[in-house]
């Protein structure tokens, strides 16, 4: 990615992403779930209301940290 960006800066060409060789991978299911829980738990905590069915923020954070 760095090479493509460097080249783009040199040539002034805006569409550098097309020159990148690497495609992003899919994440494993447990990571996706942990992320989902984190967004939901975090929002529940921030707005001080359990809009989402999610673990506590402490549990959600711990789970992500353990990944």
């Amino acid at each position, binding site marked *: 990615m760095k090479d493509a960006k460097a080249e*783009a800066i040199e040539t002034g060409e805006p569409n*550098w992403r097309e020159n990148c060789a690497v495609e992003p991978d*899919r*994440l494993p299911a447990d990571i996706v779930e942990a992320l989902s829980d984190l*967004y939901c738990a*975090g*929002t529940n905590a*921030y707005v001080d209301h359990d809009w989402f069915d999610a673990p506590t923020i402490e549990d959600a*954070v711990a789970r992500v940290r353990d990944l």
Partner: protein
Amino acid sequence: MTSVKDFRVEEEPTATDLGRGRFVFSDRYSVFDWGEMPDHVPNKGASLCLMGAYNFELLDVNHVPTHYLGVVEDGEVKELGECESPPTEMAIELTQVPDLPHADGAYDYDAYHEAAGDNYLIPLEIVFRNTVPVGSSLRRRGEPADYGLDADEWPDEAVSLPEPVVEFSTKYEEQDRYLSRAEADDIAGKVDLGRLEELALAVNHVLTERADEAGFDHEDGKIECLYHDGTVKVGDVVGTFDENRFPTADSRSRKRSSASTTSASSPSGSRP
């Protein structure tokens, strides 16, 4: 760069009047500088919409003007408190976004403002910071003393700023860049940079207070603004886990170095 929220026009803005639109928050996520990733994260969209709406309503109570009109449930625009379940759609006022011509390696902001008149999206991102982590690009742009810190060098850990720092970067350039005050002032057009700074600090204050009450720190965030007929309003979405960094009290006491909880999980990563 791909956006993780979709945008819909309900009523087009005119040269003089604001229109109406919708943000539809998806479960997609993107990584800084690349774009959309292949996965969807369940409830991410609803979480961002809810937090964004909550913050807009908080800003309203604090007399900070925004483009927020409400959230949408069952086809009706309503306040968050009237919703039965987390909304994924937000109603907003719309302004004009003229083309930003790009030729010979330069962007033509004069053309932008010519078309913009008195009704336009200000083509800047206004970043506010309360702390400066180890990886922050702010460290390259200035010395600690420039930001009121009593140190000759940047320490090997995150540092809290005595006063929040506001910076401006471009929004519509292919490689967005931080700007000097003079450049930002130019790009802002007829809008006074001081007013933008004032709004950024007001938003930062409201979010930081809310975060603190909820057990989070608030490291940094950004706003975008629109100008209409003499009034500057906060636009886009404010104070979500994708746009801002809200480390929990737990991570705050255990780890004083850069990685916050949300920058570990938030695919948009750290703020450069």
